[in-house]
């Protein structure tokens, strides 16, 4: 979650934002938006729901900014808010995400355009079949590259819980995707 070397560090932007600098807050949002979209879309499987959840998350972050603890990791903090907004969005939707018509093997060979579509549909369907707690864990660790400690901070659980959820999520995904565990 570290910014490019030439950019103003998060910690400085956070201080500016807390002092009322809206552009600093905007910069923070746009800096982290790519990865937050990854989390939200993989959790919600719907781009409109993704936008709604992120809109909610960014406003909540702005409201909560005065309570942000100095020394904390802003990215992790924003992930946590986004995760909670996604859970709220899932509760609001109360419907199953769209899934694919039949599973295919997405990870063998070099897929052409049709193959890629089929693979993405399959992955989306596979993710949708995981319980939310497992889904978010595997997305954070395998999708976004967080370690267990960071994922635990975001989710508000113990690192051991992350490990067990991850183990179950990976096994389920491999099973759904038809991958033979070697």
């Amino acid at each position: 979650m570290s910014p490019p070397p030439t950019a103003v560090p998060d910690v400085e932007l956070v201080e500016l934002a807390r002092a009322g600098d809206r552009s600093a807050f905007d910069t923070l949002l746009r800096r982290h938006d790519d990865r937050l979209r990854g989390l939200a879309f993989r959790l919600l499987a719907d781009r409109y729901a993704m936008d709604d959840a992120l809109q909610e998350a960014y406003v909540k972050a702005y409201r909560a900014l005065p309570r942000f603890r100095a020394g904390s990791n802003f990215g992790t903090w924003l992930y946590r808010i986004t995760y909670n907004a996604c859970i709220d969005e899932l509760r609001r939707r109360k419907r199953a995400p769209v899934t694919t018509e039949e599973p295919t093997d997405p990870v063998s060979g070099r897929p052409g355009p049709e193959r890629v579509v089929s693979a993405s549909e399959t992955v989306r369907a596979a993710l949708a079949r995981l319980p939310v707690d497992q889904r978010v864990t595997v997305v954070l660790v395998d999708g976004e590259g967080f370690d267990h400690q960071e994922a635990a901070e975001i989710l508000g659980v113990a690192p051991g819980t992350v490990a067990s959820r991850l183990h179950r999520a990976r096994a389920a995904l491999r099973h759904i995707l038809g991958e033979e565990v070697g």
Partner: protein
Amino acid sequence: MSEELVEPDLVVRTALQLLPVPDHGPDFWYRVATDLDVEEALRLTADADAPAVPAAPVRARSPRRAAPPTVPLVELVPAPGAVPPTMRRRSNLVLSAVAVAAAIAVVVAGTSLVRSRTGSDAATEVAEGPEETTTSEAPAASSSISTLAAPHDEPAVAAVVAWVNALGQGDVDAAWSALGPASQAHWGSKSAFTAERSGLAEGYGAWSAADPDDILLTPLSSSGEGELVVVTLVGTLQQEGPEVARADAFPVRIVDGTAKVELFAYAGELEVVVPEPVPEGGRRPVVAPGDELVVVVPSDAAAPVIRLDDGEVLVCGDAPGTRLTALEGSSGRRCGYTPKGGIPKGQRVLTVAYTSTDGAEVSAESVRFTAA
């Protein structure tokens, strides 16, 4: 903790990377900025005991959602007496701040509209060179009139033109009047619609200063009242920065010769999978001529149609070249369309739409893409 769990699972990671993450919708950052304006105004107003203003805050949500169209997205203000006095006072502050912020947003939107109209006609130029035309021809843009001047002999087109022009001009009354009953029901009240006028002006109202490359009319069969048509405006818009190639679908219902825009009468979700829509300013999606075009609709979607450019309007599952299949484990259905002879190379527009079973609601979307 095993070593397997410490390191990322490469198979799972690879699989996750196969799921492309879309960019935001075109109005996302504007919506965020508007919300943050409200929050900022709240902070400012919290220190100044401003008088109460009877207005309800409304948060704009993503378009084309599956939310019930009759439920307006209004943040409810607790009824007096149901909450402690301190909470009621807080509500007044909130309402005051929202009103202040709304005024700020309108001024900002008005400024940007004025800016777009005082600029050169470059905003209406097509960025990507000549495209293969589809149906109607739009007249050349006037240098003195900033509103969209499309053919008015077709009531559905005239209704859409009137609506986007009303938005572009900030005429909320006209814009509200141009909406059909189902779309008005979606908003719940005129005040709720009015609260979002700046965002709508920036989004759909941008067409008022544009000269569409094409205007497509896609008739739908509907068991509802009157005639249902999808008007698709195809063109290049200038929106707070770079030019954006867009194709926007506007459902219109014509009853007794009167056409009303039913853009907000959502029948449910509609997801174009191939070509995958790209965000504002993004590269236009490219598909191979032999690719299958894929759309996902709810299982209860009535007569979903798919259409390439101004070609035949095809009912998915019935027309040759189309396939409508159930999706395992979901309520959706997959509509696939492989045009006979392949997709002609060049710039194309795909339009998809369906209605609810009673024909009262309609969802429609158009996507620009390149076949190469």
